[in-house]
């Protein structure tokens, strides 16, 4: 077992797959010589060379297009979109092309592309470089969506995403890059569509994703001090969505909280809430409560950004006040 940062786990996971599959290639802006602006691809150019790790112009549509076209011929491709906010400049390629190709062609073409992108706030980068946009992708039929919260999950879910024959958007959280965790020895391959109960509890279920997972866990510790036993679920994969794990948990706890970094409206938590409000309605003992970033663009100033994104305090207080 080695300890790696979440940042280093990205290159570690990619390298594992590049060694396994000599066809796998990656492209993106400043990913090669520079090792990525977040240093998540350091070392890959040296090991795999400039034909497999390719720098591109600032042309996100061209990046995703090249990835898609190559993938349609059976070459698996990893495409980096530097910040997830920039998905907006190539959203047509992602939402209208990659996502719909298999269906529109009656199954003739599939698109084994992993779109990796740095997501989320906490870096004081302001409204155009800090968004949590998992829901931009979750809402598009034909896209799979993954957002790991630990280094081990980065590696395992990266492998699963790369081996998946469909387009997967892989969200790496900027504020988790420096976090550390154990990585098991040997090849690591996880499974898409599986959530994980990261803390067991009986009084309520807290479903969280990416950066919100450690915060939910910390809040759960504090709730425990008060005698509230919270079960925390790391959702990990939004599409496919592991509704079984969520529903089973709610069956046990009878209360659901979601902790979402995305601004409120149409966040992933709304979807989860709506599933539970339908299928587990009779299990519920009280309201479903969503803890989200307010429905505002993200402010740049440290002080303001910290107020906006759900904090341990806010999670703790919301649950504590409403669980009644």
């Amino acid at each position, binding site marked *: 077992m080695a300890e790696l940062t979440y940042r280093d786990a990205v290159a570690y996971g990619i390298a594992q797959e590049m060694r396994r599959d000599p066809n796998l290639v990656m492209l993106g802006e400043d990913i090669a010589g520079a090792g990525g602006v977040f240093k998540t691809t350091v070392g890959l150019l040296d090991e795999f060379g400039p034909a497999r790790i390719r720098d591109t112009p600032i042309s996100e549509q*061209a990046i995703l297009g*090249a990835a898609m076209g190559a993938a349609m011929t059976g070459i698996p491709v990893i495409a980096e979109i530097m910040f997830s906010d920039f998905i907006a400049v190539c959203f047509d390629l992602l939402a209208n092309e990659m996502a719909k190709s298999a269906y529109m062609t009656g199954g003739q073409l599939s698109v084994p592309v992993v779109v990796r992108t740095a997501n989320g706030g906490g870096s004081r980068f302001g409204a155009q470089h800090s968004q949590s946009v998992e829901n931009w992708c979750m809402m598009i039929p034909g896209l799979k969506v993954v957002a790991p919260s630990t280094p081990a999950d980065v590696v395992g879910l990266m492998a699963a995403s790369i081996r998946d024959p469909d387009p997967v958007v892989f969200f790496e959280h900027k504020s988790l890059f420096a976090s550390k965790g154990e990585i098991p020895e040997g090849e690591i391959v996880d499974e898409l569509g599986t959530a994980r109960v990261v803390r067991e509890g009986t009084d309520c279920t807290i479903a969280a994703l990416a950066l919100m997972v450690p915060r939910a866990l910390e809040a759960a510790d504090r709730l425990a001090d008060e005698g509230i036993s919270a079960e925390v679920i790391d959702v990990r994969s939004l599409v496919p*969505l592991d509704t079984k794990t969520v529903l089973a948990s709610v069956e046990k706890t009878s209360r659901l909280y979601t902790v979402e970094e995305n601004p409120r409206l149409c966040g992933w938590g709304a979807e989860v809430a709506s599933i539970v409000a339908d299928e587990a309605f009779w299990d519920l003992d009280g309201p479903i409560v969503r803890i989200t970033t307010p429905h505002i663009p993200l402010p740049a100033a440290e002080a303001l950004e910290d107020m906006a994104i759900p904090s341990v305090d806010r999670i703790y207080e919301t649950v504590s006040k409403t669980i009644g």
Partner: protein
Amino acid sequence: MSIDLNDPALLDYSQRPPRHPEPVDPANDGLPIPLNVRTDLYKRVQELRQFEKRAYDLFMQNLVKGTSHLSLGMEAVSAGFAAAMQPEDYVFATYRGHAHTLSKGADMGQVMAELLGRENGLLKGKGGSMHLTHAEANMMGSYAIIGAHLCIANGTAWSAQMRGTDQVTVCFFGDGTTNIGAFHEALNFAKVWNLPVVFVCENNLYMEYTPIDLVAAVPNPAADRAPAYGLESIVVDGNDPDAVYMVAADAITRARRGEGPALVEAQTYRHGGHSRADPGKYRPADEVEAWLDRDPIPMYHQRLLRLGVPEGRLSEITQDVARRVDEATEFAKAGAHPGEEHLFTDVWADGGSAWRN
């Protein structure tokens, strides 16, 4: 060019000065193209013409739902390029893609059935007229949102480059498409990566209902921009199958040799409106007339006669195509409407559509 807002013709584009076609270059009779290739070209333009006419008739009978964009008048571009391609080469088209799909060898009956939304359609009825795809023959799809597919075409070219094959990708698009961002990104990217891709602008002088010269800063919207990507400016008569064939063969050969991308502007005209419902009234009447006079098919028919192909051979081809179009129509009409079992297939590569467990 820049728009003059005081130009009264802005109130009615059909009052604008017409843009007439160049006359056929008489020297093109003498292009070094073997006669068997030329008869093949004739067969090709006949197939496209007769298929599209039938498609039009089927709309009129309300058998084609949705929309449809025909290549009537523009057949020489598709035929000329297809004849210059190898079977392993990749093709990308727009929503105006019936011609390019057929040219790449898709079955007429399946294409027709797709227009009719039938289960025996090329895409099982799931894609429709605007998304014709025949991946088996490396016809990699028809794309209905302007621009994206130029970027995607780079991908198959990149794949060929990586795999060390000599496959070339040919990507068709319209004049209006030269103004969208993806065009620019695709062309620059192709050049920088030295990709084996030939971009073909079918300049039919109009985007949807707006004349291209009112919305493009340069007179030849593709060719005049080629230098911005380190490429040669190439304009070709898109109504002459031979002229297109020569230019296509040259660009494709160079790409195949590893000499990188090309951008070809083929100037042509659509005989009808933009899509099914459009009568095309925004075009000056004498412009339409002048271009109808430059219909590629009778012109080519005359050329082949001049070159000594017997009339009988040509009418044999024509009739054979007519029969096949009839058969395709029957095949299509006989198809069932797709049932619910198709609704939930093919979202994922495993054939399913589950988003949850």
